[in-house]
C-alpha cells in the first residue's frame, strides 16, 4: 500500500460523514431534509425490523434452505416477486410524494429541485428495472416451466445467479437512500448532464452499476428461458400448442437477449467517461452525447415490449379462463406477438424526434411506430372475441383486464399521436408524454402483473387471495390512475414540462390538485394490496386450493397440486391438444392416475445466487465509492466462484424415489376425491377448494 496516502481515504474511498443521509435531518431540519432523512431512516429501520422478525420467528434457517440457496424455479420466482413488491412500494411512495409536491408546486412547494430530480430518477429507474422486470421475470419463472410440462428450467444454477445479480442492483438503489445521493439525470441518464463535469458525485455511478448488474442478470434470464422453452417442453407440447403466456415469455426472453446489450454498452461507455476520462459522450474533445440517446433507446423501446408482452400473455390466459372459453384467434395472437417483437427494434428514434435529424429520418421511424398499432389492435380484438358469449366472471383479474382494454387503447391512441413527429415537436418533454407512458405502463404492465399475481397465487401457495380487498385495490388503482394521469395530458398540452419541481402558471394548478387527489387513491390501492395479503394469509384455511384448479382453468399448470411439489409433475404429461387440461376435463379425465412412476432427479442447491447478490452489491458499492480494494476483491470472489464451480461440477442432484412420488401423488388424488366440486357461481366462496364442476361446454365463437 502506498504509505504516503492517508489510510482512511484508501479504505473508504469518497465515503465521509456528509454522505450519511440519515444525519441530514439533524443539521438542516427543513421539510425537504426531513423527507430525505426520513427515507434513509425508513430503509434502516425497515432493515433492522426485517432482521428482527426473521430472528424472532427463527426464520433464518428455513429462509436460507428453502429460498436463498434453492434453484427451484418456483422459489426463485417468488423471490423475484417479493423483490418487485418491495420496490413497487418504494416507487409508488416516490410517485405520490412527487404528485404531492406538484399539487403544492405553484411557485414553490416543499421539495428542493435537487431532491425532486432524485425522486423522478429513482422512481423511473426502480419502476422499470426493479419493479416491472423482477415482477415479470418472477411470473415467467413460476409459470413457464409448468405450462410446458417441465420440472425446472434448463440452467437452474444460472437462474439463481440472475436473481442474485438483480438483487444486487436493487440493493445498490436502496443503499443510495442511506449513503449519498442518487443521480438527478432521470431514468435514462442522458449525458453530458450525467458526466463528471456536471455530476461529479456518486449519483450517476449508482445508476450505472445497478443497471449493469441487473442488466447482466436479465440477459442471462433471457438465455435461460429461450433454451428452456425450446428444449424442455413435454412430449406433444408443440410450439403451436404452447399457452399464450409461454409464447409471450419466449418473445420477451428473445428481446432480453438482444435488447439489453445496447444498455450495457451505453452504461459501460458512460462509466469509461466518468472513471477513465474517456470521451464517448462528453462535450469536449469530440464526444458525441447524441449517440447515448441513440444507444439508450435502442434498448429502451424493445424494453417497453419486454414489459408489455408478458402482461399480454397474462391477459390472454385469464380472459380464456374467466370466460370459460377457448382463447380466440390463437394463431393471430402468436403472429402478432412475434411481429411486435421484431417491429420493436425498428422504432427507437421516436424517443428523440427533436434531436435534429432531418424530416425523412423522422418520417421513417414515425411510420414504423404507427405500424406497431396493428398487431396490438389485433390482440385487443382477440380478447374481446374470447369474452363474447363466454361464461364471463368479473373476478379481480377480469376487472384489471377490462379496465386495461379501455385504458390501454386510450394510451395507445396518445401513442399514435406522439408517433407523428410534427406533433411530437409540440409535446416532447412535456407531461403529455408522462401521461402517455404511464397510461401504457400502469394499465398495461402493472395491472397485468397484479392480475397474474392474483390468478396464480393459489397455485403457488395453496390458498386464494381475498377477493374483497382485491376489488378494493383494483378499483382504487383504476380511479387513482385516471385521476393522476388524465390531468397530465391536459397540462402537457398546455406546455408544462416534465421533470420540473414547481411552476409559475396558475392555470396548471387545478389540474395538479386533481392529480394530487388521485395520488390518495393510488396510496389506498397500495395499502389494500398489503391488507389483502395479510387477510388472505389469516383466512387461508377457508380458501385452500386442494384440487389445484380453483378457476376451472385450461392450461397444464392447473393439472397439478397446489402448492406444487418440488418436482411439479409426478409424471411428465403427454400433451395431445392446445389448452390440454380443459380438453381433458371436458372428457371427464381431469384427474388421472398415471400408469407408472419413475425416480425423479432434481438439481441440487447452489450458493452461487447468494454469492452474486452479496459480492455483486459489494463490487458495485466499491466502484461507486472508489473503494478499489473492495471492488477488486468482490470481483475476484465472483470470478473464482465461477471457476471453482466449473471445475468441481454441479452439486449433487436430489433424487426422489418413485415410491415416494407415487405415495404423494396418490394421497393427493385421494384428497381431491373428498372435495365437492363447485360451479362457477360459487367460484369466490369458501366452498371453492379447487375442484371445478363440469359446466356447459364451450360456445362456438
Amino acid at each position: 500500500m502506498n504509505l504516503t496516502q492517508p489510510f482512511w481515504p484508501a479504505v473508504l474511498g469518497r465515503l465521509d460523514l456528509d454522505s450519511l443521509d440519515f444525519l441530514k435531518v439533524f443539521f438542516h431540519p427543513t421539510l425537504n431534509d426531513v423527507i430525505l432523512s426520513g427515507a434513509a431512516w425508513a430503509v434502516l429501520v425497515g432493515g433492522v425490523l426485517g432482521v428482527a422478525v426473521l430472528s424472532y420467528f427463527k426464520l433464518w434457517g428455513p429462509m436460507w434452505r428453502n429460498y436463498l440457496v434453492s434453484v427451484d424455479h418456483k422459489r426463485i420466482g417468488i423471490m423475484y416477486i417479493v423483490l418487485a413488491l418491495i420496490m413497487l412500494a418504494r416507487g409508488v411512495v416516490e410517485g405520490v410524494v412527487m404528485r404531492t409536491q406538484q399539487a403544492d408546486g405553484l411557485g414553490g412547494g416543499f421539495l428542493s429541485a435537487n431532491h425532486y430530480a432524485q425522486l423522478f430518477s429513482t422512481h423511473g429507474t426502480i419502476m422499470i428495472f426493479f419493479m416491472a422486470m423482477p415482477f415479470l421475470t418472477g411470473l415467467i419463472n413460476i409459470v413457464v416451466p409448468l405450462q410446458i410440462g417441465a420440472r425446472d428450467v434448463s440452467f437452474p444454477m444460472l437462474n439463481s445467479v440472475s436473481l442474485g445479480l438483480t438483487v444486487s442492483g436493487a440493493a445498490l438503489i436502496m443503499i443510495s437512500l442511506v449513503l449519498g445521493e442518487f443521480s438527478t439525470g432521470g431514468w435514462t441518464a442522458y449525458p453530458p448532464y450525467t458526466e463528471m463535469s456536471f455530476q461529479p458525485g456518486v449519483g450517476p455511478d449508482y445508476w450505472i452499476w445497478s443497471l449493469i448488474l441487473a442488466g447482466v442478470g436479465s440477459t442471462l434470464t433471457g438465455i435461460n428461458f429461450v433454451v428452456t422453452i425450446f428444449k424442455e417442453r413435454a412430449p406433444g407440447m408443440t410450439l403451436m400448442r404452447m399457452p399464450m403466456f409461454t409464447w409471450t415469455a419466449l418473445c420477451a426472453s428473445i428481446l432480453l437477449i438482444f435488447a439489453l446489450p445496447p444498455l450495457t454498452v451505453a452504461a459501460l461507455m458512460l462509466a469509461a467517461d466518468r472513471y477513465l476520462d474517456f470521451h464517448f459522450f462528453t462535450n469536449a474533445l469530440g464526444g458525441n452525447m447524441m449517440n447515448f440517446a441513440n444507444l439508450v433507446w435502442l434498448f429502451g423501446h424493445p424494453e417497453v415490449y419486454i414489459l408489455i408482452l408478458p402482461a399480454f400473455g397474462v391477459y390472454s390466459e385469464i380472459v380464456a379462463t374467466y370466460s370459460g372459453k377457448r382463447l380466440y384467434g390463437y394463431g393471430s395472437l402468436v403472429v402478432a406477438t412475434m411481429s411486435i417483437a421484431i417491429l420493436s427494434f425498428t422504432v427507437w428514434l421516436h424517443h428523440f424526434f427533436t434531436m435534429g435529424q432531418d424530416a425523412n429520418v423522422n418520417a421513417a421511424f414515425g411510420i414504423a411506430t404507427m405500424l406497431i398499432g396493428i398487431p396490438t389492435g389485433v390482440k385487443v380484438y382477440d380478447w374481446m372475441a374470447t369474452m363474447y358469449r363466454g361464461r364471463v366472471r368479473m373476478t379481480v383479474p377480469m376487472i384489471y383486464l377490462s379496465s386495461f382494454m379501455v385504458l390501454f387503447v386510450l394510451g395507445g391512441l396518445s401513442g399514435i399521436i406522439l408517433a407523428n413527429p410534427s406533433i411530437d415537436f409540440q409535446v416532447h418533454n412535456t407531461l403529455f408524454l408522462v401521461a402517455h407512458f404511464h397510461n401504457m405502463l400502469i394499465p398495461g404492465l402493472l395491472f397485468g402483473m397484479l392480475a397474474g399475481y392474483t390468478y396464480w397465487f393459489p397455485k403457488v401457495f395453496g390458498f386464494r387471495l381475498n377477493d374483497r380487498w382485491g376489488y378494493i385495490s383494483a378499483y382504487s388503482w383504476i380511479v387513482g390512475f385516471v385521476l393522476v394521469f388524465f390531468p397530465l395530458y391536459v397540462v402537457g398540452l398546455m406546455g408544462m414540462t416534465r421533470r420540473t419541481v414547481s411552476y409559475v402558471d396558475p392555470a396548471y394548478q387545478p389540474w395538479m390538485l386533481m392529480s394530487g387527489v388521485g395520488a390518495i387513491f393510488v396510496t389506498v390501492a397500495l395499502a389494500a394490496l398489503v391488507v389483502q395479503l395479510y387477510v388472505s394469509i389469516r383466512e387461508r384455511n377457508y380458501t385452500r386450493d386442494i384440487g389445484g384448479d380453483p378457476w376451472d382453468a385450461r392450461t397444464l399448470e392447473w393439472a397439478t397440486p397446489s402448492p406444487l411439489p418440488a418436482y411439479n409433475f409426478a409424471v411428465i404429461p403427454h400433451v395431445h391438444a392446445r389448452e390440454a387440461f380443459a380438453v381433458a376435463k371436458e372428457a371427464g379425465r381431469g384427474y388421472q392416475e398415471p400408469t407408472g412412476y419413475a425416480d425423479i432427479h432434481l438439481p441440487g442447491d447452489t450458493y452461487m445466487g447468494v454469492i452474486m447478490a452479496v459480492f455483486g452489491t459489494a463490487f458495485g458499492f466499491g466502484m461507486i465509492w472508489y473503494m478499489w480494494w473492495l471492488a477488486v476483491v468482490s470481483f475476484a470472489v465472483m470470478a473464482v466462484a465461477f471457476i471453482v464451480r466449473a471445475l468441481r461440477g454441479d452439486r449433487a442432484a436430489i433424487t426422489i424415489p418413485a415410491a415416494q412420488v407415487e405415495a404423494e401423488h396418490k394421497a393427493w388424488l385421494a384428497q381431491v376425491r373428498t372435495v365437492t366440486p363447485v360451479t362457477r357461481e360459487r367460484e369466490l366462496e369458501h366452498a371453492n377448494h379447487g375442484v371445478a364442476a363440469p359446466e356447459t361446454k364451450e360456445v362456438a365463437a
Partner: protein
Amino acid sequence: MSHAATMEPAGQNPGLTFGAEHAHDHDHAGKALSGFWLFMMSDLIIFGLFFATYGTMLVPMSFAGGPTPKELFEIPGAAMETAALLTSTLTFGFASLAVKYNFAKGKVLGWLAITLALGMVFLGLEISEFARMFAEGAVPQRSGFLSSFFGLVPLHGAHVTAGSIWLIMMMVQIARGGITDSVRSRLARLALFWHFLDIIWIGIFSVVYLGGLA
C-alpha cells in the same frame, strides 16, 4: 380452424395423458451449447454497437485535432496479429478433431497449447501496439475517436484473455481427468467462442485497420 385435439383420434387422447415415465436423456451438452450460442449472439450485438460507435467517431469533430487513423495505424502490426489469431483458429480446429476422433490426450493438449501460445502472441502484439500508441500520445483521453478505438479493440482483447484463461482451465482439467463428457461439452463451447472471436477480428482488421488506412 381445426381444434388441435381433433388432429388426434378423438376419445383415445383426452388432451392429456400420463404414461409411465422413461428416464429420458436430458442432453445437457446440447442445451448448454444452445445457451452458449445465444450468449454469443448477445455479445455480438455488444461488439456491433462498439463498431457502430467507432464508425460515428471517424469524423473531424471526434478526432478533436488529435491523431487520425492514417497517422496511427500500420499494416505490419495488424497483419501479424491477424496471422496469429487466424492460425490459432486452425489449431483449435485440430484440437477439436483430436477430441472428436479420440486421439491421445497428449495430442489434444498439444494443439490446445499451441492455440494458447498463438493467443498469447496475439495479445503481446496488441499490447505492444497500444504501448506504442500511448507513447505517441494517442491515449483514449485524447479524443472521442481514440476513446472509441480503445473501447472496441481492447474489448476484443479482453475476450481473448478470458478465452485464454478458459483454455488453461480446460488444459488443467484434461491433464487431470482425461477427456470426459464434460470436457467434450465445454471444449465444444470454448471452440465456438474462439472461432467467434476470430470472426470479430475480421471486423476489426477490416473496419479499423484496413478501413482506416485505405
